[in-house]
């Protein structure tokens, strides 16, 4: 009981081969698109790599890049095969390659699906990486004289300006770290010394934020200092406070940015996966139809094509038994050709009797 049986006439077979040739070429283009998407994602992640804590999320664009390159190769080979498949003589050339090719393409299509699903599932990992990365970057904001950290101030300022965000979750995160380097603090000033002494860890903390937190939407010049004391500024009402600084946290801003990109990429990859599946089904039908034609002997006759020769359960059993026998190959029990030396040579049984034993 074959799965998905369809009968093909000669012209239908030739038409199928032509259509598949075209679809394979289109798949080469979609493979290139996949490669391009992977490259784009890699560049986007590397742009703000300094504010992400580990490199863990780079495996997604790498997966997309390798899958894209594989798609180009596999589909190019596929187009060559399909072009030859229209003619039974040329098909014989490819006959032995077809089954491995189809199995390979099946696994490759599964990889494309995995790539698409990864794009959607990476959100939680990204959230963690951004939280830790931003916390560290804010801590090292003042270390513009330490090699390896001297550009973190510039990166964080540009990030806050471009994504219109402030701090990790909120602008108040800046109140909890010392973001002014001790090099620029006047330690002879009593106010400074008092503040440093009153802190447990000896840090100079203030209720102010860097200039990059300032919102361009505010109708008044930016208020960066004495933020927890609204009375210190003239006419600093609730509305002014809302518009003064960026309210969003940078973790949320970056998360939204990357999630948006990855969702679009994930959707495109899913569409590409569906297309590849279609091409794979077509190639399978063509392969089975051509093999049946050769089996029937008459190139002009109709032939049947199917996805699986027997039902799904039977095919699964058959494949399992093949895998089992592959494993058994390395065990020595049933093979009559192997001469297993026993302790006494005169106990050797004549070969005819051995054969009878095996066949029963």
């Amino acid at each position, binding site marked *: 009981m074959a799965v998905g049986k369809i009968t093909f006439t000669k012209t239908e077979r030739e038409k199928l081969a032509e259509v598949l040739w075209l679809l394979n070429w289109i798949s080469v283009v979609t493979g290139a698109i996949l490669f391009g998407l992977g490259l784009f994602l890699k560049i986007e992640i590397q742009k703000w790599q300094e504010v992400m804590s580990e490199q863990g999320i780079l495996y997604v664009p790498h997966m997309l890049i390798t899958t894209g390159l594989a798609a180009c190769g596999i589909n190019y080979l596929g187009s060559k095969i399909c072009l030859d498949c229209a003619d039974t003589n040329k098909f014989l050339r490819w006959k032995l390659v077809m089954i491995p090719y189809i199995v390979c393409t099946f696994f490759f299509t599964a990889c494309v699906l995995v790539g698409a699903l990864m794009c959607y599932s990476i959100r939680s990992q990204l959230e963690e990486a951004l939280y830790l990365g931003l916390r560290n970057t804010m801590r090292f904001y003042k270390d*513009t*004289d330490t090699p390896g950290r*001297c550009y973190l*101030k*510039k990166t964080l*300022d*540009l990030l806050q*300006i471009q994504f219109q965000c402030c701090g990790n979750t909120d602008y108040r995160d800046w109140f909890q770290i010392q*973001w*002014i*380097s001790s*090099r*620029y*603090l*006047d330690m002879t*000033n009593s106010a400074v010394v008092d503040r440093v002494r009153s802190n447990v860890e000896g840090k100079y903390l203030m209720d102010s934020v*860097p*200039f*990059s937190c*300032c919102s*361009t*939407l505010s*109708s*008044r*010049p*930016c208020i*960066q200092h004495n933020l927890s004391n609204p009375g210190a*500024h*003239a*006419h600093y009402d609730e509305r002014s406070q809302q518009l003064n600084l960026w309210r969003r946290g940078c973790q949320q801003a970056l998360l939204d940015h990357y999630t948006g990109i990855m969702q679009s990429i994930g959707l495109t990859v899913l569409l590409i996966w569906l297309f590849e599946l279609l091409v794979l089904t077509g190639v399978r039908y063509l392969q089975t139809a051509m093999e049946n034609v050769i089996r029937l002997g008459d190139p002009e006759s109709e032939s049947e094509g199917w996805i699986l020769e027997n039902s799904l359960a039977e095919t699964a059993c058959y494949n399992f038994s093949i895998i089992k026998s592959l494993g058994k190959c390395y065990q020595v029990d049933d093979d009559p050709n192997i001469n297993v030396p026993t302790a006494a040579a005169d106990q050797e049984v004549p070969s005819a009797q051995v054969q009878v034993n095996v066949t029963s």
Partner: protein
Amino acid sequence: MALLVVKFDLKKRVKLAQTVWFMYWFAVLAGILVLSLGLFFKIELRKRSELMDNNESHFLPNVLIAMGLIACGINAFGGKVCYDSLDPTKFAKWKPMLKTFLVFCMGFNALLIVTSLLCFIMRIPLQFTLAEGLKNGMKYYKDTDTPGRCYMKRTLDLMQMEFRCCGNDNYRDWFEIQWVSNRYLDFSAKEVKDRIGSNVDGQYLMDGVPFSCCNPSSPRPCIQYQMTNNSAHYSYDHYTEELNVWRRGCRDALLSYYGGIMNTIGALVLLVAVTIGLQYVDTSLSTLANPEDMESESEGFLLEKTVKETFTDIMAKMKTMGKGAKVEEGGEEGVATVS
């Protein structure tokens, strides 16, 4: 003695026609390029029209857009003529128009060259518009409650951050205007009253700049207020401090940006004009080379006579046209006086 005579047999004619058809479609793409350049320039001017006092001239981008559209049309038409030129029946209906078409194309090409020259020249009026607009922009920075000017603060802040500039010529321009609105000044404070009192016009001036002037590359947090007072900040010397705020003036920054755009557009349009001009040469060779009988050889030339003779011919034609008009006038006058 014709100019640049080349012999053509059928194969060569077909090859020439194909090449010229190809070049016509390339020219259509070039026309689309000019159109998109014009659109891009128009959008860039629109984006910052507030800083140019809403006074900027959109003449140049409009000309570029028109030229791009006309180029597309002419070259598509030329391509169609070229495609038909190998079929004598179809070609017969185009043949009478051909000469005028070619002359028209030459004229259009000259216009393209003039446009590219305009691109280089129009920097100068733009310079004046920008200078005026920026000065006013800074004056209206604080007027976020006045309709018509309420977005000036935002526009200026975004511009200073994007172009990495501060003030008109440099950051000291901000010291000369009041950029903090009276709404946000505490008039009961002594310091505010002193400062306003000491100013002739009653303006609140200070040696501070808006936050958008701050340079993120500075190793220390931005010093925006009391910039000329070294003692107000620890380890600070405003004479030697270079990375604190942007040093460049916004007029220079915007000018070099728009100047760059216009130079690039001018160069590209010149390139397009030269490329198209070359293929009109090919066209005259190809179209004049088509005889009635397809199989025979024919001669193709650029001009029927030498350059000098063609020129004298044109002059003679113009003189006869002028004389023809005069004779008619005289005749009419004669008729009038008779009666």
